[in-house]
């Protein structure tokens, strides 16, 4: 009959309030961990996404919009640039690779990106890893052929040999169907980057799609640039952004994304505040639950005291009980965390193509449960004081 056994008995005797209180702790712990982990991992992952490039050259605009459009395949294109702009940067000796892209069409909401076959032979979307095919092959330049990212293929149910008609615009509108028919020649293996959500077609295909303005035939949406050295980035930054006023050179890509996180930092703070408040309320619920139960447990406490239990032993038992409830909640919190983080990761993957790992190591997975257990134990101090002060003679038997 150890103190832990006495605490376990008490938890079982008050099973309903134990479960309800532990559930609220689980919700708080899970929410806190999920908000924190998704925030930090999203920050790290998004700023780490470069698609295998160092910079983006596009029409004069905000760097963030350019990066979101060209790398993450989100947002509207800020405008087009002339083919000679591509040729100019391609010729620059400090540029290792320049890849032109053109956007403007979609297939059931999934963007068609026109580019060159260099994408499949030279680009490394993940470090030291080029694009790989799970089936089929790359498209041939100048042909009405398409290669689908893994996520787009899965969602659209397209496979090699299937044919489809693109739709005009970045948003799906069934009235905007183009007459051209494209045939799927390849499906890419998952790269865990936004490229998984894209349908790649030859650049000429997008430039010359019927219904597009004539000038688009000689224009592109952006140039994805890989540099030979970081110094080259500084030179081109000066050339395009400071000396020129027609184009924008977004470099480094991570910095532009960091701006996005800076802009939405307030939202993180609000979420974290909500999670902390939930944790506070959950701790308070332990306090209220145990404090109320002390009235009905006065006799039990008096009996234990009559059997020789010290006040401090019973004080410790109540604090231990409080910590035990918080511990149960913290453990169950991992289930809540798993559900929230997995759901959030699935949404982010579907919307952006970036893959988060909910079970990747994050310090919050330790400090949040430990903090919650500590605050739970602290919440037990007030009811423990009530147990400590219980008058034995008063509560044992009536005076005669």
């Amino acid at each position, binding site marked *: 009959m150890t103190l832990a056994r006495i605490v376990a008995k008490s938890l079982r005797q008050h099973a309903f309030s134990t479960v309800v209180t532990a559930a609220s702790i689980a919700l708080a712990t899970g929410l806190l961990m999920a908000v924190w982990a998704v925030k930090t991992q999203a920050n790290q992952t998004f700023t780490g996404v470069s698609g295998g490039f160092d910079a983006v050259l596009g029409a004069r605009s905000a760097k963030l919009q350019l990066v979101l459009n060209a790398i993450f395949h989100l947002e509207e294109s800020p405008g087009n640039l002339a083919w000679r702009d591509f040729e100019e940067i391609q010729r620059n000796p400090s540029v290792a690779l320049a890849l032109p892209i053109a956007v403007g069409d979609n297939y059931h909401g999934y963007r068609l990106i026109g580019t060159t076959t260099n994408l499949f032979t030279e680009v490394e979307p993940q470090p030291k890893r080029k694009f790989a095919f799970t089936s089929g092959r790359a498209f041939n330049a100048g042909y009405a052929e398409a290669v689908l990212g893994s996520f787009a293929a899965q969602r659209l149910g397209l496979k090699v040999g299937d044919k489809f008609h693109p739709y005009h615009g970045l948003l799906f509108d069934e009235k905007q169907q183009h007459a051209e028919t494209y045939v799927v020649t390849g499906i890419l293996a998952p790269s865990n980057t936004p490229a998984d959500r894209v349908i790649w077609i030859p650049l000429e295909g997008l430039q010359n799609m019927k219904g597009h303005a004539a000038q688009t035939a000689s224009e592109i949406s952006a140039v994805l640039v890989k540099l030979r050295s970081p110094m080259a980035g500084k030179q081109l930054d000066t050339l395009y952004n400071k000396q020129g006023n027609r184009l924008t050179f977004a470099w480094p890509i991570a910095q532009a994304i960091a701006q996005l996180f800076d802009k939405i930092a307030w939202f993180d703070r609000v979420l974290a505040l909500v999670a902390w408040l939930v944790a506070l309320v959950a701790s308070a619920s332990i306090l209220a639950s145990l404090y109320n139960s002390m009235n009905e447990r006065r006799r039990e406490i008096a009996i*234990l005291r009559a059997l*020789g239990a010290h006040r401090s032993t019973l004080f410790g038992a109540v604090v231990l009980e409080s910590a035990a409830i918080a511990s149960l909640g913290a453990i169950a919190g991992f289930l809540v965390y798993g559900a929230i983080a997995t759901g959030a990761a699935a949404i982010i993957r579907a919307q952006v193509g970036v893959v988060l790992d909910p079970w990747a190591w994050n310090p919050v997975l330790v400090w949040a449960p430990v903090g919650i257990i500590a605050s739970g134990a602290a919440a037990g101090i007030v009811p423990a004081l009530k147990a400590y002060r219980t008058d034995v003679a008063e509560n044992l038997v009536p005076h005669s």
Partner: protein
Amino acid sequence: MPLLEITDLRKSFITPDGATHTVVDVPTFALGEHEQIALSGESGSGKTTFLHLIAGILRPDAGRVTLAGREMSALPESERDRLRATHIGYIFQTFNLLQGYTCLENVLLGMKFGRGVDHAFAISLLKRVGLADKLNHSPRQLSTGQQQRVAVARALANRPQLVLADEPTGNLDHANARESLALIRETCRENSAALLLVSHDREVLAQFEQVRDLKQLNRAAAQ
């Protein structure tokens, strides 16, 4: 030297109207080792308070309670708790069993804060009081008489030198009361424990060789 020695023991309470009400005023009382004494006392004679003072649950306003050579009334609360846990077994009128625990666990709790848990001894005590087949029953599943027997086993669990019994048969019917009293006396003898029992039941008192009237013993009760 007696096991329990009381000298000029006084305890008063403040009533709700602010007056001081003396409940216990015992000039002298002694109980030897292995001795069994019954105290007769009507309701309001201060018998429960008297037992609480002996057990160290209450601290006297004045006087001394010496148990096994240690002046209990002079000890700090934590040491009184320790002395109670190791030297005293307490049988209550309402048994005071913990309902969330089995019979065996109730007896083990009687050991937990004293000399330590001894499963074999706890089981032997429950066997001795005739509850060998009820070890894992909850007190709720037992009759009143059976609950009393668990309380007896628990009181003896820490191998006490002194057992205090406060109206132990007060909640039992006639047959159970007689049986229970005999059991308490026998088990105290078997375990070498002295017994101090308070009761207002004449039949109970008639079983004892030594009966003291609390009214004569306690000047506060005589007033």
